[in-house]
Every structure is written in structure tokens, then in C-alpha cells.
């Protein structure tokens, strides 16, 4: 049986759950974080005409041969920890060498990826997600991405109902010694009256889709694990991330036509894991919002009992769905 390489931050506790499932099944796991390189993790990879990349990844407690890695789980590794005493130019140089050397060999592994890191990076782009989802047969909200106030006003005029604004990228920042989050916001007439600042960067606007509830659909390989998310508050109904205490969850089924389209989407994005968000309208129509290639899933498993860690382990071990 081959080894399973797990690449994640040490304090990523959901990854602990996957490691525990794999260990209980008797799988050989080698867990590492990029932060361990080069001071706690040694790389000695070789390639020649006879064989692909072989040689070891070694830490103080175990070693794995690159040629024996059958699968790799990639989840939020942290930056290389370089030796103290380097100058800033040396640090930049060394970090680039580490990324190209260690990262290059790891991404060259001919193994089952959950998911391929380059594919995860590419799939982070919401515009790409929306375009691909649409091509795969999923309904998407009418969307505008712009730095033009005039375009915002025109979009608001074209949409029959309300519109929302949400970040195109990360919603979180720290400023003024405080952590702040830009949640999804329903736009008011007052908001539209003063659009100063739209031209400072890209902004994303979408038609507001009437919802009965939302669905977090966690995908691991061909396994679809869907949970309804219901909120009892206005804030939670606009963006469930803003009011977790108001939420309740229920395991649900994915309609076959949606499931087929999601599998096409995942193939097109070359993802083997994703946390997808859908709005389900009062008449039962599913509208795709986004796919998070490295999305959170542990709390959904906790609240619903959906076997997500087990599904990720199945995918890493090549267990048929």
C-alpha cells in the first residue's frame, strides 16, 4: 500500500480528523507543512532516465519515498520558515528556491491529488467559477464585476429586484487594530446614492435571489454531501457567515441534474474537493454562488453527521464512490 502525503498547517484541526480516519484504516500517512522546510524537513529528490522523482522527504520522526506516494491532500500549508540571520534579499531568494524546489517536486508527483494545488489556485477566481458553472449547466445569478459607478447604476437599473454586493476575494482584513469582515450586503437606494470608492478596485454585484434556504454542498471525488442551512435572522439570511448562532442544518439530497452539473464543474476545474454554496429558491431551484477549493467543512460534519472526513479519506485511498 502506498503512502498518503498530507500537506497542511499543524494547527489545522480538521486535517487531524482526516489523518485520524486514515490512521484508523491502517494507511501510511506522512504529514508535513511547508513551514517545516528547510529546518525540520529534509528533501533529497532525484530523477533520471530510468525513473521519475524518487528519494526522500524526511523529518525527525519518519520518512517517505516520493515514488511511494499514492495520494496527496493539500490544505492550507503555511510559509517556509527560513533560518534566522538571513538578510531580506537572502530570504526572498531562499523562499523562491524553496517554493520551486520543494513545491516543484511535490506538484510533480504522479499521484491522486485532493486537490492539485495549481488547480486550487486557479479555481479560487470567482469569475472563473461562475463562467465554468454556467457552462456546466448550473444557474448563476446575474453578476457585475466593475470599478465603474456608472456600471453599478446601470446594473441596478437592469435588475428587476434588489442587488447585493460581496467581495470578489477574501472578505477579511485587519485595520485599526481590529479584525473586520465584509459580508454580503443587500444594496439600498442610499447606498447607490454615493458610489465614491467603487473606482478604487474591483467590486462584485449580483442580483438578489429569493431563497428558502442555502445549501453547502461538500464534494469529495464523486461523493456529494449536501446540507441545508436555514437562518432565522435577516443577517443570517443575507449571509449565513454573519450569524452562525441563528443557523440550523439538515442533511439533504442533491437533485440528480445538479449533481451531474457539479461533477462536470469539478472536472473542468480539476478539483477533487470543493465546498460549494447554493441558494435554493422557494420553488426549489438551485442557484450556484461559489466553490471554495479549500473550504471549511468540519463544522458541517459536526452539525449534520455527514461523513466528510471519511469521504476525503476515501478519495485519497481510491475507494470507489
Amino acid at each position, binding site marked *: 500500500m502506498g503512502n498518503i502525503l498530507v500537506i497542511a498547517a499543524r494547527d489545522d*484541526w480538521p486535517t487531524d480528523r482526516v489523518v485520524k480516519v486514515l490512521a484508523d484504516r491502517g494507511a501510511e500517512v506522512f504529514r508535513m507543512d511547508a513551514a517545516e522546510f528547510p529546518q525540520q524537513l529534509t528533501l533529497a529528490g532525484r530523477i533520471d532516465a530510468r525513473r521519475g522523482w524518487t528519494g526522500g522527504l524526511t523529518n525527525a520522526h519518519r520518512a517517505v519515498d516520493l515514488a511511494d506516494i499514492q495520494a496527496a491532500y493539500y490544505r492550507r500549508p503555511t510559509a517556509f520558515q527560513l533560518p534566522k540571520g538571513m538578510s531580506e534579499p537572502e530570504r526572498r531568494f531562499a523562499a523562491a528556491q524553496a517554493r520551486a524546489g520543494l513545491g516543484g517536486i511535490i506538484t510533480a508527483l504522479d499521484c491522486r491529488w485532493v486537490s492539485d494545488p495549481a488547480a486550487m489556485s486557479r479555481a479560487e477566481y470567482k469569475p472563473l467559477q461562475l463562467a465554468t458553472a454556467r457552462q456546466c449547466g448550473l444557474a448563476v445569478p446575474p453578476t457585475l464585476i466593475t470599478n465603474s459607478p456608472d456600471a453599478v447604476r446601470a446594473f441596478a437599473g437592469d435588475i428587476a429586484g434588489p442587488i447585493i454586493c460581496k467581495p470578489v476575494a477574501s472578505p477579511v482584513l485587519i485595520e485599526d487594530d481590529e479584525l473586520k469582515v465584509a459580508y454580503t450586503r443587500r444594496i439600498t437606494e442610499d447606498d447607490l446614492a454615493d458610489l465614491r470608492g467603487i473606482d478604487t478596485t474591483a467590486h462584485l454585484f449580483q442580483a438578489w435571489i429569493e431563497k428558502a434556504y442555502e445549501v453547502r454542498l461538500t464534494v469529495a471525488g464523486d461523493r456529494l454531501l449536501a446540507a441545508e442551512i436555514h437562518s432565522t435572522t435577516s443577517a443570517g439570511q443575507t449571509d449565513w457567515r454573519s450569524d452562525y448562532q441563528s443557523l440550523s442544518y439538515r442533511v439533504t439530497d442533491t437533485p440528480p441534474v445538479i449533481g451531474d452539473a457539479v461533477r462536470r464543474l469539478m472536472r473542468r476545474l480539476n478539483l477533487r474537493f470543493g465546498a460549494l454554496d447554493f441558494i435554493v429558491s422557494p420553488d426549489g431551484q438551485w442557484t450556484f454562488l461559489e466553490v471554495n477549493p479549500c473550504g*471549511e467543512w468540519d463544522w458541517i460534519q459536526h452539525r449534520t453527521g455527514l461523513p466528510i472526513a471519511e469521504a476525503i479519506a476515501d478519495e485519497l485511498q481510491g475507494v470507489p464512490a
Partner: protein
Amino acid sequence: MLAALAHPLEGFPLTAEGGSLPYSSEAPTGPNTRPWILRHVQRPDATQAIVKPAAVYDEQAQMSISIYDGPLPYMATHSPTVPDGNVKNPPPLDEGAKD
């Protein structure tokens, strides 16, 4: 001839050095320079914060274990994306690692 423009950062994404969210004491600027969407930025509800149990990483088990008796840390907390507004404990980003 077209050159490939993929940047190596995209091929092996890592959380940035110092954490996913750089700390800053800088105050917000005015409406002409501040991204419009940040007008309605919120501090996450601290009353919904989840206190993580003290833990250390066990090299043999390759997972975190509790400092005190009790369940494994992963069994004791299930933090969703934005648990609190503590700048010393920035939340994981639902979108994953960013450079």
C-alpha cells in the same frame, strides 16, 4: 510566440508569512480612496467566539493533542469560518490559502 505567464506562486499556494491576515494599526481612509464595499465592514460578533482548547502537536500521531485530559482537540471544537474578531486569532479563510 506566446509565453506562459503562470506564476510559481499559483502552483504551490501558501499562507503568507506571518499569517493569512497581516496585522495593521492603520486607520481607514476617506470615501475617495477606500474601497466602497468596506463602508459596511463589520466586526464579527465576539459573543459567538469559540475558545480553542490548549493543544500541542504530537509528532507521532501527526495531529494536535490536548494539554490536559479530554478529547482530541479536533473533537472539541468545530470552528466555522469566522469565529470571532480576535486579531490574535484570525479565522481561517473559507477561500483557502492566499499569497
